[in-house]
């Protein structure tokens, strides 16, 4: 089955002060219809740029974006307009992503009217009502004439989801969509996104830095872990969470606090060799993670760029040469100091 959207060898760089920042390097990612994919990684790793390329707000510097098997550039005229609407993005900050100058009714009405999706005023009002009910903003009559500043953060995020739904998208990129929302409201919004995915046959790309959230949200989907512009591990969520392959994923998972204090205290902690994230202008040669990697193998990790390959005994793909070639990882400290002294 052709995937809904596919990134092939996508590179993207930005020019900042005449310096070239390689934000994305060789990203390969395909998203099927009705699938959930989580992009996980620390800030600056290129999650948001990937999301914007998926949503069509940015183009790749090189590489291909295929939509239903066809390059994006081959969509022209009416097709391009429909494509534009099929791929949507929900922003992180619900206080910045909604124009404060319009009422909620207007915000939802603009795209509906612009794209001729309603024929009369009654139909417009009916559709706005439906959309507000769909995102659990009830009673809709309470919301429709309010201004964004009169709503809470969670309500605003629901409004921005409803706004995206006005144009009947196929794919929604949720860029840290709940990280600015109160913790108590997050689950409600995530459940709603799940329900919408089933009701409306959506694909969702969920971008987050919070692995616990990714685990909850994408349990029946896939997780892609990103580090400094590359995907370092990708696979079905239960596989990645239960048996993390790449050292970076292991470190991330080890850092997730558990609700049980006993568990957290006795959880095996994975010590990184360095806390500093390298700058994008000085990405280390070979595997970008090697200066921090607790399983660093000198001569291998700092010379060869690891491809995404299936390691033995794992169901997912990981970009780690020692793991793929030998099937196991030996801590660097043991390697340089085998007696443990």
């Amino acid at each position, binding site marked *: 089955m052709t995937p809904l959207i596919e990134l092939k060898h996508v590179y993207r760089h930005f020019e900042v002060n005449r310096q070239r920042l390689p934000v994305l390097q060789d990203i390969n990612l395909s998203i099927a219809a009705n699938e959930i994919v989580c992009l996980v990684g620390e800030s600056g790793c290129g999650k948001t740029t990937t999301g914007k390329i998926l949503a069509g707000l940015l183009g790749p510097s090189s590489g291909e974006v295929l939509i239903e098997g066809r390059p994006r550039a081959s969509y022209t005229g009416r097709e391009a307009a429909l494509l534009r609407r099929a791929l949507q993005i929900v922003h992180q900050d619900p206080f910045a*992503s909604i124009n404060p100058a*319009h009422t909620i009714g207007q915000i939802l009405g603009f795209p509906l009217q*612009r794209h001729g999706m309603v024929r009369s005023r009654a139909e417009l009002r009916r559709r706005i009502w439906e959309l507000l009910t769909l995102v659990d903003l009830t009673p809709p009559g309470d919301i429709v004439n309010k*201004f964004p500043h009169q709503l809470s953060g969670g309500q605003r995020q629901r409004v921005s989801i409803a706004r995206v739904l006005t144009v009947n998208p196929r794919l929604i990129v949720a860029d840290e969509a709940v990280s600015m929302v109160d913790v108590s409201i997050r689950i409600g919004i995530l459940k709603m996104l799940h329900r919408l995915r089933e009701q409306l046959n959506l694909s969702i790309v969920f971008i987050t830095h919070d692995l616990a959230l990714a685990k909850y949200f994408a349990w029946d989907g896939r997780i892609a872990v990103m580090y400094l512009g590359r995907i370092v591990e990708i696979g079905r969520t239960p596989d990645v969470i239960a048996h993390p392959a790449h050292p970076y994923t292991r470190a991330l998972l080890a850092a997730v606090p558990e609700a049980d204090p006993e568990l957290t205290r006795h959880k095996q902690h994975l010590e990184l060799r360095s806390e500093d994230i390298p700058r994008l202008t000085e990405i280390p040669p070979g595997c970008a993670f090697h200066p921090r990697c607790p399983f660093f193998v000198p001569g291998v990790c700092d010379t060869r760029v690891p491809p995404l390959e299936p390691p033995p005994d794992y169901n997912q793909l990981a970009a780690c040469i020692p793991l793929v070639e030998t099937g196991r990882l030996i801590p660097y400290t043991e390697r340089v100091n085998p007696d443990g002294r």
Partner: protein
Amino acid sequence: MIGFEIGASLAGLVIGIVCGLVPLVFGIRMGQLRAGVLGFLACAGSGFLCGFLGGLPMIVLSTAVVISYAYVNKQDPFTSLLRIEDVNFEETRGEFFLRQMAALGNAARASWQALVRNKAGFLGFCGLVFFILLTTVGPLFVPLETSPQMDRRAPGARTLFQGPSQEYPLGLDWQGRSVLSHIVHGGGALIATAIVAGLIATAIGVVLGSLAALLGGWPDQLLSVLANFILTIPQFPLLLVLASTLSLNSNLALAFLFASLNWPSLMRAVRAQVLSLRERDYIEAAFALDLGLWHIITREVFPNMVSYVAVNLIFSIRAAMYGIVGLVVLGLVPIREPDWGVMIFLGRQQGALFNPNAVSMLLSPILAIALFQLSLVLFSRSLEEIFNPRLRTGL
């Protein structure tokens, strides 16, 4: 054109009263008698001041306020608990009209509350109202004295200059004419010219600034270089040269002259604002929703810029006024009485600087100009709040 002129007139009063019937009738029909009567008075007043120009907009505004008091939203929380099948989404033209008017009225009321809340801003507003009334209604009550009044010379005095007295509250000028009459008659043209100059400069600044920010690339660089070039020229000496070579016979020409020098600072301010607004998430969302460039400029960017532009408009008016008065005081603009600037110019020429009796003749226009400017600056403080959409509440 009768009616379309600034300045109080009896015909305007009639127009205003006729206009005022609309909110009055709405007020009576909707059981909002107090709001209706207030609307009637507002219409009559603005019609009296500006004829149709004031009366017609005031009909809309005051009627909207009246409706907003009486409006009950059909989709209130109680009815909206219904299931979707039970909600009637049909809306007659009349209901739609009422809803729109109520929203407008609500916005007007919120703006008024914002204005009253800020004390300094409200003081400035009162000052502006005072000066507008002084220069429009005032001439109806204070006749203009143009010819010299030799018979007013005080016994034993060498000049006709006089300090304030009961008969002449602001004293007499060098020809024995009442200073008050010149203050009342001499501000209108000056204020109007400054406002027109400010409006033109703002219009140029907003259009060019938005273009520069949105287009980027070489248009941006070209416009920025041009603006910087004009900004680096010392403005007042350039004005002096221009004013002495051009013949500035009409106020409109004067306004254009000032606008052509004032727009660069405004353009740079607007450019910076648009550059910042352009990067907002909701603009990106609008692009993703394919709402179109025109919609994005007029409905997404501009509403968030209004307060900023309004404040800059005020400062532009202020600068134009100082510039005009400066030119007049230096005698570089054809002398036309009555005018606040001309009063200072002639007073200085006729030796008012050395005559204690002439203090009020010199100080009156200076104070009038200074107070008007102060009112403008104070008012600009609350402008930001008036146009701030965050202070609005829905129906």
